C-alpha cells in the first residue's frame, strides 16, 4: 500500500509499546493506566498481536516493550516474544516480576527476550508492599537475582513519589547489591490513577532536590559500574519535557483492545477517537490517521509556543498534561514558565506540599473494582 505525499519525511515509529492487558496483580496508585481499565475486556489475540508486530517492524520499529497492566498475565507471552524476536525486534519485558518464576525466565530467554526490567515500589519491604497492594517484595528480589543468573542485562525501575522519594540512597544501594546494570529512577507522571492520587503522591520541592542531589552523587561515584537514569519530576521545572519526543514522532502504543495511541495517556483527550488495529493497518494508522497527525508539526500550536524559539526542542511539552491542567490540549504545557497557567501549577504544587504534612486521604488503589466504581458501574455507591 502506498501513500501520497512526502512519506519519506514522516518519522518512523521506532518504539512500539505493546500493552498486552490491563489486568495486574499489583494495585500501584501511581499507575498511568487509564481509570477505565475495567472496560478493556476484549484483548487482542496472539495472532492479532503478531500481525501488529510484523506491520510495525516493516515501518522501522526496532524496540518493542511488553507491558500493561502486567504482561506476565498473558499465557502466550513466550510465543509473542519469540515472534517479535524472529522479526528482529529488540525486546523488553517491563514487569513487576509477579507472575513469573525460574522456568518462565528460562523460557523467555529461549524465545529470545533481550531484557527484563523489574519494578520495585520501594527499597523497604513494608513500603513496597503497601504501595503495590500485595506482598511482592521478596519475590521481586528473587526474580532480580534470576534475571542476573540468566544473563540478561539487569535493569531495575523505581517509580518515585512522596512516599519513597527520600529512600533514593537506599534504593541505589539495593540496586548495587543486586548488581544491576541500569537503574531507572522514574518519576510518577500524573495521568490516570496517578492523577487521581496526585494529592497523596506529589513530593515536595525539598524532597525532589534532595533526591536529585543523591542521584547525581551516585552517578558520579558509580560511573562505568551502574548506569543511573534519573527523571526529574516536571511539576517543579521551568521548561516542559519533550514528551515522547513529539506527538506521533517515534513512539507507538497499542492498548489491550487494539486502540493505537501516540502515548499511553492520549485516550483521555476529548474529540479524538483513536484508530484500532482491528480496523486499520499500522501504516495507515501512523502515516494517515487524523489523530496521529493532529499534533504533528507546529501549525497546531497556540502562543506562546507558536513563535517560541524552543518549540523545536520540546514541542510545547505534553498534550495530555496541557489538556488535564489547562483544559486545552493545544495549549502550552503549563510546566513551561512561559505558559499563562504556570503560576497556577506552582501554586497547586505548593498547596499539595503543604497539605502533605496534614491528615492524609487514603490512596485509591488501582484495581478493577475501583475502576468499575469510578465508571459508575459498581453496586457500591460509596465514593
Amino acid at each position, binding site marked *: 500500500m502506498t501513500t501520497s505525499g512526502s512519506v519519506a519525511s514522516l518519522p518512523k515509529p521506532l518504539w512500539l509499546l505493546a500493552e498486552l492487558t490491563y489486568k495486574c496483580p499489583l494495585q500501584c496508585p501511581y499507575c498511568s493506566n487509564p481509570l477505565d481499565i475495567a472496560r478493556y475486556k476484549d484483548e487482542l489475540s496472539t495472532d492479532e498481536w503478531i500481525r501488529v508486530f510484523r506491520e510495525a517492524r516493516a515501518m522501522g520499529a*526496532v524496540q518493542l516493550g511488553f507491558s500493561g497492566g502486567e504482561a506476565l498475565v498473558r499465557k502466550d507471552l513466550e510465543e509473542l516474544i519469540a515472534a517479535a524476536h524472529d522479526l528482529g525486534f529488540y525486546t*523488553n519485558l517491563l514487569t513487576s516480576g509477579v507472575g513469573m518464576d525460574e522456568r518462565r525466565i528460562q523460557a523467555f530467554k529461549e524465545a529470545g527476550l533481550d531484557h527484563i526490567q523489574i519494578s520495585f515500589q520501594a527499597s523497604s519491604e513494608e513500603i513496597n508492599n503497601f504501595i503495590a497492594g500485595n506482598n511482592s517484595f521478596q519475590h521481586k528480589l528473587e526474580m532480580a537475582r534470576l534475571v542476573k543468573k540468566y544473563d540478561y542485562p539487569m535493569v531495575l525501575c523505581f517509580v518515585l513519589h512522596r512516599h519513597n522519594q527520600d529512600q533514593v540512597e537506599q534504593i541505589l544501594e539495593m540496586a548495587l547489591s543486586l548488581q544491576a546494570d541500569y537503574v531507572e529512577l522514574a518519576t510518577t507522571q500524573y495521568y490516570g490513577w496517578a492523577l487521581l492520587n496526585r494529592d497523596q503522591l506529589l513530593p515536595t520541592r525539598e524532597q525532589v532536590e534532595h533526591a536529585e542531589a543523591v542521584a547525581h552523587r551516585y552517578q558520579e561515584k558509580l560511573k562505568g559500574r551502574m548506569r543511573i537514569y534519573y527523571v526529574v519530576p516536571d511539576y517543579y521545572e521551568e521548561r516542559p519535557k519533550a514528551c515522547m519526543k513529539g506527538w506521533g514522532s517515534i513512539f507507538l502504543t497499542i492498548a489491550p483492545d487494539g486502540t493505537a495511541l501516540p502515548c499511553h495517556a492520549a485516550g483521555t483527550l476529548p474529540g479524538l477517537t483513536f484508530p484500532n488495529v482491528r480496523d486499520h493497518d499500522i501504516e495507515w494508522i501512523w502515516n494517515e490517521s487524523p489523530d496521529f497527525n493532529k499534533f504533528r508539526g507546529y501549525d497546531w500550536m497556540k502562543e506562546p509556543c507558536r513563535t517560541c524559539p524552543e518549540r523545536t526542542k520540546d514541542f510545547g511539552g505534553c498534550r495530555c498534561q496541557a489538556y488535564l491542567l489547562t483544559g486545552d490540549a493545544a495549549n502550552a504545557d503549563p510546566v513551561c514558565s512561559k505558559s499563562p497557567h504556570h503560576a497556577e501549577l506552582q501554586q497547586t504544587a505548593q498547596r499539595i506540599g503543604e497539605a502533605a504534612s496534614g491528615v492524609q486521604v487514603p490512596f485509591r488503589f488501582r484495581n478493577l473494582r475501583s475502576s468499575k466504581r469510578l465508571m459508575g458501574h459498581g453496586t457500591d455507591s460509596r465514593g
Partner: protein
Amino acid sequence: MSEPLCADDVVVIAHNFRFQWEEAQGCHVLLYPEGMVKLNPAAGEILKRCDGSRSIDQVVADLSAQFPGAEALRDDVYNFLKAAHDNQWIRRKPA
C-alpha cells in the same frame, strides 16, 4: 576501561548491546535496554568486524583492504574504538 586498547586486543560488542543492520534506517545500530545508538557508516563497518575473530590490527588491515586509499584509517579506527570502549559498547574478549 583502565588500560588503553592496543593492536593485539580482540574486542567484541559488550554483553548489554546488540549490533544489527536496520534496513528502515539504512544504518547499523547498537540496541540496549529501551535504547538505540545510530552508527554512521564508518562506525558500522568497524563494529561489524569486532566479532571476536580479529585483533584491532586485523580490523584495520581488513578495512584498509576493503577501502583502499582511505587516509588516516588506523587513527580513525583507534579513536573510534577508544570512544566505543569508554561508552562500554565494546570490551576486550575474555581469554
